[in-house]
């Protein structure tokens, strides 16, 4: 589904990704771990189409097409979803309005009609209840005055409503207490299917107790330096990232 080959990007004069290669197939869940500043969020933003990041080398293909040629909105309509590490607050834009506009943008692109307003609200409320969110948040500005946990749940809500082919979740677990983490993990798991792929970006092993990855990668200095199965995450938790760096440099 997603094929990244030798990807190099910079922002301003700083090179962040330095030849990253990653292959994600439908049905798979990948976890990307790594120390601060290793390029995890950059990878997520480049896949979503952030214009501040310049791709200097390499290719990214999604379902066989060149993802780098598409605008962010085209990527979203094709089924790429990014759950932001820091979801932005947008006062004055109603949360339900955005959710519906997003769902309809994707539906129109797939040749489907717009959602029925009544069915849409019913579904949104159900999903919010399942995520432990107050349905009243639908009528607030997007993320406006939301707690850290509410913002992350709102990202997961959008994801479950949009049903993307590829979901990239950037530190969706950070800022969540253990109960919230379980609820959010459940939400992510409902999306697991043979047609979809999920990439979890995280610092910690604990999310992976609830969303079991098929593959774990360690990103360091803009490259994937080690890949393995879920036992790699446990090993990292025990030995720290320094262990990987030393192993690479050795």
């Amino acid at each position: 589904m997603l094929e990244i080959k030798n990807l190099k990007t910079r922002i301003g004069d700083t090179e962040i990704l330095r030849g990253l290669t990653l292959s994600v197939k439908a049905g798979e869940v990948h976890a990307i771990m790594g120390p601060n500043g290793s390029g995890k969020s950059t990878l997520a933003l480049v896949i979503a189409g952030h214009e501040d990041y310049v791709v200097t080398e390499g290719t990214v293909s999604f379902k066989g097409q060149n993802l780098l040629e598409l605008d962010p909105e085209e990527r979203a309509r094709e089924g790429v979803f990014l759950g932001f590490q820091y979801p932005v607050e947008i006062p004055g834009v109603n949360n339900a309005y955005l959710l519906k506009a997003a769902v309809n943008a994707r539906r129109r692109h797939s040749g489907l009609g717009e959602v029925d307003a009544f069915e849409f609200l019913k579904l949104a409320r159900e999903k919010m209840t399942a995520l432990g969110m107050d349905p009243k948040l639908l009528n607030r500005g997007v993320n406006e005055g939301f707690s850290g946990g509410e913002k992350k749940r709102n990202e997961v809500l959008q994801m479950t409503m949009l049903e993307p082919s590829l979901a990239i979740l950037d530190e969706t677990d950070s800022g969540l207490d253990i109960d919230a983490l379980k609820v959010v993990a459940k939400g992510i798991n409902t999306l697991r299917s043979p047609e979809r792929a999920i990439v979890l970006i995280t610092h910690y092993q604990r999310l992976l107790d609830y969303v079991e990855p098929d593959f774990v990668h360690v990103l360091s200095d803009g490259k994937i330096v080690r890949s393995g199965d879920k036992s790699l995450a446990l090993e990292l938790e025990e030995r720290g990232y320094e262990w990987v760096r030393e192993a690479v440099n050795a």
Partner: protein
Amino acid sequence: MKHELLSIDGVRDAVRRLPDDALTPIREAALAHLDEHGLPTLRDEDWKYTDLGPAIDISNRWFAAGARPDTSDDIAASVDLITASIDANWLVIANGLIDDSRITIDNGLEVLRFSDSPTAVNMERPLANLNAALLRDGLRIEISATMEKPIGLLIIDSANSAAGVSQASIEISVAPGCDAEIIEYQASTGEGDHYANSVVALHIGQGASASYVRLQNRGKRHVQTGRLSATLDVDSKLIMGSYDLGGRLVRNDVDIDMSEPGAEVIFSGLYIAGDGQHIDNHTKVDHRVGPTTSSQEYRGILNGNCRCVWNGKAIVHKGADGTDASQANHNLLLSDKAEIDTKPELEIYADDVKCSHGTTIGQLDEAALFYLRTRGLDKRRATVILTRAFAVDIVDRIPVAAAKDAIASLVESRLADLVQDVAP
């Protein structure tokens, strides 16, 4: 740029062409003042950013062509459309002529003409002089009961000749204890050049309130200068909303005089300007006694090569202790060719006062724009949504419920138009 002067001979000829009636002495007096003082220029502090050149040019061309009011009947369709869009008791001033055929007069509402009982005109303001000199007739509206429907004042002009000029003058008084709702709707049609000049004086009696909404939706070739002056009695309240969507050159003056304790004024404004537009809002609040309260917030959305001016002045006079005055002006600039000149001014001569002011100028939030795009909304749509979000608070504050939907939808389509030209 060479500054053309208003042709006083032209004004004189135009005054003489009006019917000789009860207003003649007032017109002559106003003409004499105008002759002596002229119109404001860029050298006047209050007119530093706004050049009346286009208004003067249109006026002189109109004088030269015989100073005749536009009599085309294509305006009727627009009048029908507008009066049907808002459920109000409508008075129409079309091309400077009063048309009271649509209004229902009932208990508690009286509508008179200036010519029925002429009173002296305030001669301190040059544009009010021009208005009084060229005025065919004015309206005096007395509201002495709380009415079911708002009063609608439609000031509309058709610009079908090369140059047209029109005046409107309205006095409104709200009797003690009444709650009045008033809509001032200014519009114009046609492809010619037009200059419209209006004066509205509002008096709010003791314990009374007025909700006043002012919409300016003139054509892109049309010039408007308008003044609203309000005086507030003991414990009275004015809630105002001002919406500027069109016009080539627009200057609005709001002048509020609070000489009685317990008076309160809340006003909000929104101006939306695109290529070739110049919109200037000047407000002045005189707190002459305390306790009195004023709060104002104007927001502007600017795109293309345009210029807007906001100048909000609050004067807290000696002894006006207990005054609470706040001013805010926020601007969203969508183009690097757009210019905003914003200036809050506080003059405080009393000790026990609470005053605050703040202005901001910003661009679209790039992070929010990217966020919306990652949710599948294209850049244009995302821009419209964020621009609308910037305006929404002011739109929500439209103080006359009957006008809400109509104005909100005009704002919406104006914003959609404006954003068509956002640089990719």
